[in-house]
């Protein structure tokens, strides 16, 4: 049971956990990751997230499917926001359930590592009026490589 969504609205964690449990009852372990706009002291900043509608959802789903093939996950819910967000705002939620904790942790961490370099979202940071496109850090690519995969489907 995999569910992905791209939305401008914020998401409720209680609602997400409730949907996860309805989708696949019987889990013993749930792991949630929430990514937030970091509140960096000393500079007012915002983040504008752009995506490729349709392909962003497909790329998120492909990552979740690979995770569900690799670990015995019962349910996965992923929500990614787009639009302009301020410090402290929620950007992304990855929520997985499994019978046991190790599969739940591994599945959630793998999905986040893959999201960083594979899903088609772009982030424009606005700090003190200066705008910068953020690109995946080299550490993001090595994080995904540590799972035994090249970054990006079909990449050479």
């Amino acid at each position, binding site marked *: 049971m995999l569910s992905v969504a791209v939305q401008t609205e914020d998401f409720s964690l209680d609602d997400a956990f409730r949907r996860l449990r309805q989708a696949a009852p019987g889990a013993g372990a749930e792991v949630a990751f929430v*990514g937030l706009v970091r509140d960096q002291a000393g500079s007012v900043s915002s983040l504008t997230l*752009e995506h*490729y509608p*349709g*392909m*962003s959802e*497909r*790329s*998120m789903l492909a990552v979740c499917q690979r995770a569900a093939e690799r670990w015995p996950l019962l349910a996965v819910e992923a929500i*990614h926001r787009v639009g302009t967000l301020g410090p402290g705002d929620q*950007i*992304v939620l990855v929520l997985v359930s499994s019978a046991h904790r190790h599969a739940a942790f591994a599945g959630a961490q793998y999905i*986040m590592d893959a*999201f*960083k*370099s*594979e*899903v*088609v*979202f*772009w*982030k*424009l940071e606005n700090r003190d009026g200066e705008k910068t*496109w*953020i*690109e*995946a850090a080299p550490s*993001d690519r090595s994080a995904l490589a540590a799972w035994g995969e090249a970054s*990006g*489907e*079909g*990449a*050479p």
Partner: protein
Amino acid sequence: MIEVRFFARLREALGRERLSLPLDAPGLTVAGLLCALDAEIPGARAQLTAPGIRLAVNQTFVEDETFTLNPGDEIAFLPPVTGG
């Protein structure tokens, strides 16, 4: 017609978000499309083939410049992504 889309910093660099090209010739490849785009937007070819730029045809990544396009295809040029 072929629909071409540019995202994020490519969109800003090229000054446009999308473009329709009347390229209905059979056997048009990605390489051929790049030539047509460079004619339409001078300098586009260098931007679109810079390191890290990826191409998707109908929302699926394509790596091969000999890939053949069909009328109605949507081609997107994607700068390095960073989700999550």
